[in-house]
């Protein structure tokens, strides 16, 4: 017992006044005082009947607390809690193991980049007025995760076919008007068009758990969640 323990709120003194005794009494009862302080408290108790009586009274009364029963929750406590948690709209949606929002963001960014690159290299015509400067947002439907864009334009059809590719919206949320150069060169029957759309790879359907090899790297750093242009192009070509 080196006296290096909890020293309480008062400095160690050999003699204590009644006021100091009462002030340190809670820590004394709980055994939180250092050796010197405990000795000083005992010494004061031996010399002061009033403080000694207080000490005895408090310690005995605290023993009486043991008769208090432990209250157990009612039988339906858990059921009611579960009901409140699920039925009250306060369910904390713990992310499922397969859901990684970082990966989702990377994949969305990759799909946006691909569309922009594809538009700039092969489809966009330099003379197209106005459209090249129109900032575009691509609303990707991550349907496999139950996520949908919060702001859906009013002009969006209520029931979209499952294979509908991601529509293109401007930053204001309105649909970008169709461009002549994006229109199919040969007229296609509606059903055939729908089938060809169904065959198109959907960006939202890209496996979110897929890792891509980074050329020129080895080991764990050779894995990346974002493919290179070549990898993405060859993946989409299949």
């Amino acid at each position: 017992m080196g006296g290096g323990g909890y020293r309480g709120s008062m400095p160690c003194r050999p003699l204590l006044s009644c006021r100091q005794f009462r002030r340190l009494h809670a820590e004394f009862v709980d055994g939180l005082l250092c050796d010197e302080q405990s000795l000083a408290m005992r010494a004061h108790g031996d010399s002061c009947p009033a403080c000694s009586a207080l000490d005895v009274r408090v310690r005995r009364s605290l023993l009486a607390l043991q008769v208090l029963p432990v209250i157990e929750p009612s039988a339906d406590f858990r059921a009611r809690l579960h009901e409140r948690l699920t039925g009250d709209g306060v369910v904390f949606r713990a992310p499922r193991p397969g859901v990684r929002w970082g990966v989702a963001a990377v994949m969305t960014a990759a799909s946006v980049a691909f569309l922009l690159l594809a538009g700039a290299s092969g489809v966009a015509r330099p003379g197209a007025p106005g459209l090249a400067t129109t900032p575009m947002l691509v609303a990707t439907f991550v349907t496999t995760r139950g996520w949908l864009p919060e702001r859906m334009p009013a002009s969006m059809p209520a029931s979209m076919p499952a294979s509908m590719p991601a529509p293109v919206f401007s930053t204001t949320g309105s649909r970008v008007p169709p461009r002549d150069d994006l229109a199919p060169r040969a007229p296609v029957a509606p059903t055939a068009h729908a089938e060809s759309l169904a065959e198109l790879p959907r960006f939202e359907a890209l496996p979110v758990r897929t890792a891509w090899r980074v050329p020129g790297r080895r080991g764990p750093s050779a894995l990346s969640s974002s493919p290179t242009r070549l990898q993405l192009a060859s993946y989409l070509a299949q």
Partner: protein
Amino acid sequence: MRQAALKVEYAKPLGRAELEGLDDNALVTSYLGGASRAFDLLVERYQTRLLNFVYRTVGDRERAEDLVQEAFVRVHRHLGRFDRSKKFSTWIYTIASNLAKNELRNRARNPLVYFQTMTSGWEDEDRPLEFEDANARPDDAFDRKHLRELVDAAVRRLPAHHRQVFVLRELDGRSYEEIAEITHCNLGTVKSRLNRARSAFADIVRPAVI
């Protein structure tokens, strides 16, 4: 190329036995990571302790259960914001303590409602049956029951801010530092309140224990 795409395996979810071995903060992490059972275990660990704490603070069993449920709902709602570098127990006790304090404050503002709530369950038939030990002498059982009622009443008679500190320390075994955090007081105030509460409690139960 699809051949180049490597599947990344995710860790398997932990079973109940494995979850039971985790501490509170690890359970929170597990729950946020998708282990839905982890929250059940947290409820299991704290429901009785919180109920006793709140019941001793507000003095009304049914209301205490409601408040503990509310505490769990709030914990559930804000679990994502919980600072996992701190103790979960302190956090959940702080929430329950705030709810209990609000309850006491509301009662002080509107005592009539509380009186009606109290008197609605006063019929003897509604009380749960209590079975005493058959081997004990009747006068022992009587003394024990009498002492229990006296102690219960003594705790209730303490001023609310003293009672809270007293219950957290004496019935729940919280450290002074934790109590200070839960009750938003400094350490000196906690010690002072505890001293006063103990002294007042001792005075009330004195006839029965000395």
